[in-house]
């Protein structure tokens, strides 16, 4: 009927979290190879993660590093070589060079294009299909109508994020370490990271009068996210009517328990929407979701406005 997926960075989080609301798990943090025991950069942990997910009847997709430089290609290749020996349900790429590496290795597993793949048009989706891509994550700037157009005209699966922070920019080095007030212990890229990203880092636009900042972003070190949480819980019926079937909750950078709470709400809302039930009262769900979103909720760009705007169902 539909697929609901989320992301998990490492084995510890996978084992300790409740991801039972999801049909599929994207394993790994595509932004930071140094994230502790990141599936995306630890070939030796792939089999354990895959088994854990498959044992629960879920699909396992492996995320590959999004922005490899020349010097990263060798270790990314090692991760790919290991992954291709395992029954992953798909591999996710964000980088055209990595996509080419998969083709050079005669990859037969489905390939998903990730959020930093810069997918804006159905013609680009067609190009990528020729390289084995079966699912695309359109750039967050696209409206729902544009997303639907791609799904209908390129004959590919389209992943539609329905909740969580929006990835806005990715970095080759750690912004948190580079701007640590006390002087960072460890450095980015040399294996001595002090993992300051385990603390919640928000970027706030300063105001001279000391009042509440009017702009906020969340920073995870190598990726900057929207301050607000994308929320489409009121629009499940519309998504179903548009023929969209693959939905995603962004979990990277969130506290333990976030994915479980959000997943339960969306599992229920989407199940009802796809069964054609009348829209329920969303107030309780919105209360819960707003409580998990420190900076509030938004609809991203789906309704052709600024990314941090929110429009209710009515």
């Amino acid at each position, binding site marked *: 009927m539909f697929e609901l997926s989320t992301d998990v960075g490492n084995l510890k989080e996978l084992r300790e979290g409740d991801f039972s609301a999801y049909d599929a798990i994207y394993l790994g943090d595509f932004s930071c190879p140094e994230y502790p025991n990141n599936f995306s950069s630890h070939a030796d942990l792939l089999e354990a993660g895959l088994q854990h997910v498959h044992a629960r009847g879920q699909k396992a997709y492996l995320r590959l590093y999004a922005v490899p430089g020349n010097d990263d290609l060798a270790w990314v290749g090692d991760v790919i070589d290991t992954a291709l020996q395992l029954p992953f349900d798909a591999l996710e790429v964000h980088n055209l060079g990595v996509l*080419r590496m998969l083709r050079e290795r005669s990859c037969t597993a489905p390939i998903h294009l990730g959020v930093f793949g*810069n997918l804006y048009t159905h013609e680009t989706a067609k190009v990528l299909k020729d390289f084995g891509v079966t699912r695309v994550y359109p750039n967050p700037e696209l409206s729902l109508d544009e997303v639907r157009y791609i799904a209908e005209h390129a004959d590919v699966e389209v992943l539609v994020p329905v909740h969580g922070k929006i990835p806005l920019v990715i970095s080759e080095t750690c912004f948190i370490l580079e701007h640590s007030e006390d002087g960072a212990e460890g450095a980015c890229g040399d294996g001595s990271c002090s993992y300051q990203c385990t603390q919640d880092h928000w970027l706030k636009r300063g105001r001279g009068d000391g009042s509440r900042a009017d702009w906020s972003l969340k920073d995870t070190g190598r990726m900057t996210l929207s301050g607000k949480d994308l929320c489409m819980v009121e629009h499940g019926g519309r998504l179903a009517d548009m023929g969209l079937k693959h939905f995603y909750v962004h979990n990277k950078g969130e506290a333990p328990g976030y994915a479980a709470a959000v997943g339960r709400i969306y599992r229920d809302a989407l199940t009802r929407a796809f069964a054609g039930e009348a829209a329920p009262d969303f107030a309780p769900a919105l209360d819960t979701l707003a409580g998990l979103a420190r900076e509030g909720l938004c609809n991203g760009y789906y309704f052709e406005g600024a990314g941090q705007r929110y429009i209710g169902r009515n």
Partner: protein
Amino acid sequence: MVMMMAPGGTLEMAKTVLDEGADAVYVGVVGWSRRGAQDELNDDEIRHTIDYALARGKEVRVVVNTLPSSTELPMFVERVERYAGWGAQGFMISDLGAMRLVKERLPHVNVHTSVGCGITNYEDVRFLRELGADYVVLPYRLSVEEIRQIKGAGKVGIEVFLFKTPSGGKICPGKCNMSSYFSFRRWLDTEGKDHFFGSASRGGDCLRVCQTEWNFNVDDIDYRMPMTIKTNPALWLEELPDYLAAGVDCLKVPGRDRSAVLVRDIVRVYRRAVDAILETDRPDLSAFASELETLRGRWMTERNRRDNRLLRQAIDESARVSAEAPAVTQ
């Protein structure tokens, strides 16, 4: 022979840079390039630029590097065919699908993959070459060694900007949507062209939200340590001989949104510097150092003026949207 390409943010600028020694000029089409309309040319101006360049044995590259809507692609192809028919020899493009459409219809034109493609490694370059790229525009932050590795990866023209940022940091352009997150409006013009205020990738201005004063809040504690989110690029010269030795085929003078006078002076300096490098194995670039330092200062002054203007637009638009937001989102 390395090609020096310079910007034509206005018709006056386009003519000036050709007169000052640029081998080619690049011009953006209104609504189709990664700049606001004030730094783009309409069709009459583009045709005039092409005629002016061809009469002097020079070339024109047309910048159509927005990431368009799917429904805009027929209009995109029609425009590219029109400009190629007028004599434009190449196009800067970001969207892979658009690139393939152009190469299918116009195999003789040069396709430059835009800096918006966000290249990070030589496998990216191989991918783009196989798709039909004749030139790849590299990001501002690569080292000479990285460029050498990329050049060695295959036969494709290497194009670099004559300004750069330190290695690392946020990947911009090519992987950033911060501007449109805060301020974004879409509208269709009378021809059906999509316009996206606030999104550089989609043909509006980047509103420079990374350049306002940001502070960290860590685990609910505010830290007053104002910073910008991204480092601005600066004009460079010292490594130019090494870049050329590494196999760079095209040097791109930045500045479509700068004054024609400043761009003219930048082209003058770089023309002489490139010629000096090409004439001898041991070029002495020290004569250009003080000139370049002055140009850097003028560049920064004009950039700050532009950033303040754009940031003001972002703040005003964001405030307008926030005022309309329902309570549940706060």
